[in-house]
């Protein structure tokens, strides 16, 4: 369903040392360094999987998501998702995906949530019966009943995030990209979000690609893990094989997933 092969992307970053002198120098000659955000990334994903995409900050997780959702154009490599190349067939392709960026908002700030939802219904051209049944399912499972008529600016972060996730699923996408969906959420909201992700994966067969720093998310959700560090793909496998490989039973008995990941980061020297 998703095949990514040999994707590379680098960004030009302006660099200078501190101080007025170097600022003046930068007026005339600017030094750029090429930062390789992604370096020859390849993997494939089957329908119905939940993929946990992990790695330290700045590893290239979000960049991968942005390439896969058609926002960024990679320098090299190819990517085929449901037969589309995301950045070439953007408009036709994005009808099939839902995206949540945990650090950004897609809801209109000054109007009730439901207005944003109805706008999305029209943007994706969702037929009314389908929209209504999706909305019903989403309001029930994400517990939106009481907040859907409130302006977004008056929602708490947890409430808003639940609405953001609902907004990404109104058009029944078959792939859902979640970029740090649980960032900043309290325990209750986190668990609600996790249960919801499991549910739509089971019931509707939605393929989920999830990036997060919360290893509990990964433990609760992902049946397969992709580890990325410094732009390269370092590990691809399920949680158990990860445990077998890095668990340190001699000391603590059972290692927590957090410790396992730290050990893994250390081995690959990417932390």
């Amino acid at each position, binding site marked *: 369903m998703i095949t990514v092969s040999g994707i590379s992307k680098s960004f030009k970053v302006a660099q200078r040392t501190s101080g007025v002198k170097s600022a003046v120098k930068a007026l005339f000659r600017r030094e750029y360094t090429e930062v390789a955000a992604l370096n020859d990334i390849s993997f494939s994903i089957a329908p119905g999987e939940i993929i946990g995409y992990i790695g330290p900050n700045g590893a290239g997780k979000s960049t991968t998501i*942005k390439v896969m959702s058609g926002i960024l154009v990679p320098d090299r490599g190819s990517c085929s998702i449901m037969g589309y190349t995301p950045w070439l067939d953007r408009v036709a392709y994005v009808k099939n995906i839902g995206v949540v960026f945990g*650090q950004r908002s897609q809801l209109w700030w000054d109007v009730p949530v439901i*207005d944003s939802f109805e*706008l999305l219904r029209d943007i994706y051209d969702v037929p009314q019966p389908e929209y209504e049944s999706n909305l019903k399912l989403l309001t029930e499972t994400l517990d939106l009943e009481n907040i859907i008529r409130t302006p977004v600016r008056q929602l708490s972060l947890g409430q808003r995030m639940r609405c953001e996730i609902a907004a990404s699923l109104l058009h029944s996408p078959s792939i859902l990209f979640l970029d740090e969906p649980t960032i900043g959420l309290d325990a209750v909201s986190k668990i609600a979000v996790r249960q919801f992700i499991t549910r739509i994966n089971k019931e509707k067969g939605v393929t989920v690609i999830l990036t997060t720093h919360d290893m509990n998310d990964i433990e609760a959700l992902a049946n397969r893990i992709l580890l990325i560090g410094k732009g390269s793909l370092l590990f691809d496998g399920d949680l158990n094989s990860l445990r077998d490989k890095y668990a340190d039973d001699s000391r603590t008995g059972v290692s927590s997933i957090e410790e396992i990941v730290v050990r893994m980061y250390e081995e690959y020297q990417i932390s």
Partner: protein
Amino acid sequence: MRAYVSVFRLRLANGLQYRSAALAGIATQFFWGFIIIMVFQAFYAQAQSPPPLSLSLSQLITYVWLQQAFLSFIMLWFRDNELFQLITSGNIAYELCRPNGIYGFWYAKLLAQRLASAALRCFPILVVALFLPQPYRLVTPADPATFLLFVVTLTLGLLILVSISMLIYISTFITMSAAGSLLMFGVLGEFLAGVVIPIPLMPSWLKSIVYVLPFRLTADLPFRVYSGHIPKWQALELIPLQLLWLAALIGFGKYAMGKALRRVVVQGG
């Protein structure tokens, strides 16, 4: 198409909720309108011998009131900060995963914003200006045909203005700051549209520059059609020119936006 209509409706509804901003705006526009009219009144009174000006004072006053009433149709500085934030903060990521062209989507948004603002402000100003004592009164158009031509040219002018303002947003992709483009487009565009000095009062060398540019089709043309300063037959001739400029500006904007989106970088997180 449904998406464009829908964003238009939502933006319109959103814009209509700012009542106190509209009231303050109306007050400002009256104040401003009176100042400008008084300045021109003094100017006309001091002109030696019968002024060689082709625009009569009453036509000029009409011009000023229409300007004030339809301010949001003609001002380039009238902007949607949300769109600028979208570009500079990276929230554009969401716009890019929608199944429609961003150009049309933003165009509908900007158009709705201007319409909402005008809907709240233009009627009180027009009504009051129609009943002001002479010489401050806004005169009614000579006949229904003139009024109809005014509506047509004003509508096309609005569409042209929005397509010019789209270029400001597109330039933000490259400069990452809206201030420069806004100032440049704002000051130059408004001057060339005849918003600062009515175009009939400009020297002839300046007129010849202004007439080849699209800006004056947004404000100067409809207002002079209204007052009858531009006769009906001439207005009919200028409507195709408006359509031509509209097509050219939209075409260029779409092309430039496509270019900008190819090299977009969404920073952070």
